């Protein structure tokens, strides 16, 4: 009897091991390392998109992942409003209801500095087929600390010059090849005088979101602060020249809508706009358009990009499973799918033809010119720890700039006075 029991037990153990081994080898190339019980892991990822097609793609990838990972119960993508995304996310974290994974923009430095994100480099490098070296080095800086990557930069969208060709034709203007900022401003002024429409609009600026003005001042060789984030750059001569150009455009040449005036390029209200390439989705075909790299500044040609990353929060009760899912979500195959919505960080996917395959608004040549050729040298928008506090203090000080008789250098000096204490922390 005892012998029979032992034999039966041995057979059962061997059978169980065989089934487990079979499952592991037949499914995903990444070994299942979790010890969680089947269906016991529910993952939640916060995003700021509510685009149905994008959410459908995420859900499709999640469903495919669940098939090979029995421990996963549900994977939920929680859409939070973009305007309040940072506030909502931090409130969730503070309230003990943090998501397992989260999209992040300018909150990344705070999260990295606080140690709130899970280091990803080792996991991604050890994941078979992930190809870590495929990542473009110029786009990982915002989401890294030293050599350690803390968030995958899934969206890397350079800023570009959008042109309403119909408005230009109506005003009898022609845009030269490789235009400069001065030329754009001159044409904008002429368009405003001839048609009443706005000249150039820095999208999302609205005399409040000053960080997008980096798309202009970078052309003058200026920067908000030094690379270490310790020295204010607003009081430099280059920055003063850049703001003098903007001030002149708003109040003298009227080539840029003044404070309080609204003009939406995508509704046909202006000749030009500076916006991210991903905004091309807003082009509805109601006017003919073209897209170009940013106008050249006094220092020549340059490029600026806006980024978004996705990382795993340390507070997650399922760090291991969430990190594994992130590795799957961003592997080469899924990255190619994501590339239809977000310019990817992988060099292998960065060709005009590949990007154009899923982009109905821009041609392969345009995408090559405004995305692929720009990314290797692109400068990210200014980012720092305590982004909201710095943003508020700069905005408050810069408000004095937007009056006709503003003293540009004095205002810029006051900007540094207000943020120096924060930069030195």
């Amino acid at each position, binding site marked *: 009897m005892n012998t029979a029991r032992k034999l039966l037990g041995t057979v059962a153990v061997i059978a169980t091991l065989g089934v487990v081994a079979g499952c592991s080898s037949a499914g995903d190339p990444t070994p299942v390392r979790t010890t969680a019980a089947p269906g016991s892991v529910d993952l939640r990822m916060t995003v700021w998109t509510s685009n149905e097609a994008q959410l459908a793609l995420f859900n499709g990838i999640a469903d495919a992942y669940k098939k090979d990972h029995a421990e996963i119960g549900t994977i939920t993508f929680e859409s939070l409003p973009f305007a309040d995304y940072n506030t909502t996310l931090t409130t969730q974290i503070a309230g003990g209801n943090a998501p397992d994974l989260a999209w992040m923009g300018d909150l990344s430095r705070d999260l990295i500095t606080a140690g709130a994100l899970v280091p990803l480099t080792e996991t991604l490098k050890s994941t078979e087929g992930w190809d870590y070296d495929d990542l473009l080095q110029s786009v990982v800086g915002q989401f890294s600390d030293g050599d350690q990557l803390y968030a995958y930069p899934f969206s890397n969208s350079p800023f570009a010059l959008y042109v309403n060709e119909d408005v230009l034709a109506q005003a009898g203007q022609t845009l030269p090849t490789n235009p400069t900022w001065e030329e754009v401003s001159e044409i904008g002024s002429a368009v405003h005088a001839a048609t009443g429409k706005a000249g150039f609009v820095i999208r999302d600026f609205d005399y409040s979101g000053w960080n997008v003005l980096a798309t202009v001042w970078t052309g003058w060789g200026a920067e908000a602060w030094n690379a270490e984030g310790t020295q204010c750059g607003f009081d430099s001569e280059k920055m003063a020249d850049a703001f003098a150009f903007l001030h002149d455009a708003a109040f003298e040449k009227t080539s840029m809508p003044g404070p309080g*005036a609204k003009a939406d390029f995508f509704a046909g209200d202006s000749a030009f706009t500076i916006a991210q390439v991903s905004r091309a989705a807003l082009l509805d075909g109601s006017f003919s358009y073209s897209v170009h790299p940013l106008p050249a500044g006094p220092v020549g040609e340059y490029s600026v990009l806006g980024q978004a990353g996705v990382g795993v929060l340390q507070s997650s009760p399922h760090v291991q499973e969430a990190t594994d899912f992130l590795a799957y979500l961003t592997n080469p195959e899924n990255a190619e799918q994501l590339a239809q919505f977000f310019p990817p960080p992988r060099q292998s996917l960065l060709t005009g033809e590949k990007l154009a395959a899923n982009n109905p608004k821009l041609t392969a040549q345009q995408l090559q010119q405004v995305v692929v050729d720009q990314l290797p040298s692109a400068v990210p928008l200014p980012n720092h720890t305590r982004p909201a506090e710095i943003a508020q203090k700069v905005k408050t000080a810069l408000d004095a700039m937007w009056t006709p008789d503003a003293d540009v250098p004095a205002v810029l000096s006051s900007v540094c006075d207000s943020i120096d204490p924060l930069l030195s922390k």
Partner: protein
Amino acid sequence: MTAPTLVDTRGATSVDVAPRGPRTSTVFWTAARRDALTGYLFILPQVIGVLVFVIVPVGLGVFYSMNDWNVFTGKMQFIGGEHYAAVLSDPQLPGVLSATAVFSGGVVVLNIGLGLLLAVLLNRRFRGVTLFRTLFFSPVVVSVVAWTLVWGFLLQDNGGINGVLEAIGIPGTNWLQQGSTAMLAVVVTQVVRSVGINMILFLAALQGVPGELYEAARIDAASSRTIFFRITLPLISPTLLLTAIITIVGALQAFAQIAVLTEGGPGLYTTVLVYYVYQQAFAFNDIGYGSTLALMLLSFVLLLTLLQWQLRKKWVFYEN
């Protein structure tokens, strides 16, 4: 020791009985206790509400104000009175308090003045009076965010208000981009939306003033001005006190108007204290300092309310 002896009240015999407790213990639920319990049950929902939504949050606010809370990691470090000391050295706070005083003062004066004026005008019988009352009260029921968004469009440089001004030959201004006009715009937006409440309260008070007092005054040849200041105003002074309290408290709580219209700008011209609290606690993630400022705001509200409550003895007239 012998057992107590009770006397038979019927006088037959005297008997020894076992010791017993006091007779009243068998009737614990006396009428008085039942009444007290009923009273406590009636106020229980309110007590729970005050505990959960006032006492506990204020207690937590005091706790947070004495801690440095890193919201990203959940770590909390006790720092004692550092946040309270920071209040004294905050370079932005004087500007914020100044904006709060201007905003609250403007709203209180305009709201009560206009509310009283409208009530007096609409306390007469004329054709269409109900329509006017409805018209002035209707903004009260509109969502504050929707109301403010519409005003935001109207107040743009190329918005509706400047368009109307231009049509009649008056040069407009960039209402929300200049400090003085931005504050004026925010105050007016708030007053126009909320004046209906005060108007209705004053209207009810005015209709409660006995008509014979006016008749007697007219017989005595009192002027309209005298009648208003000697009869009307004293008799509606309890309502004046009520409206003053709720308007001041409301003005100190105004948030959505600022957030939607100006985001506290330009500069700090319209950054009132409650908006500054929000910025510190939720935008800058400095929960500790935000809590300290919130407690300061609570102290202001309490102080002003107590002050008015004390001053009422001097200027509020109660018929009884």
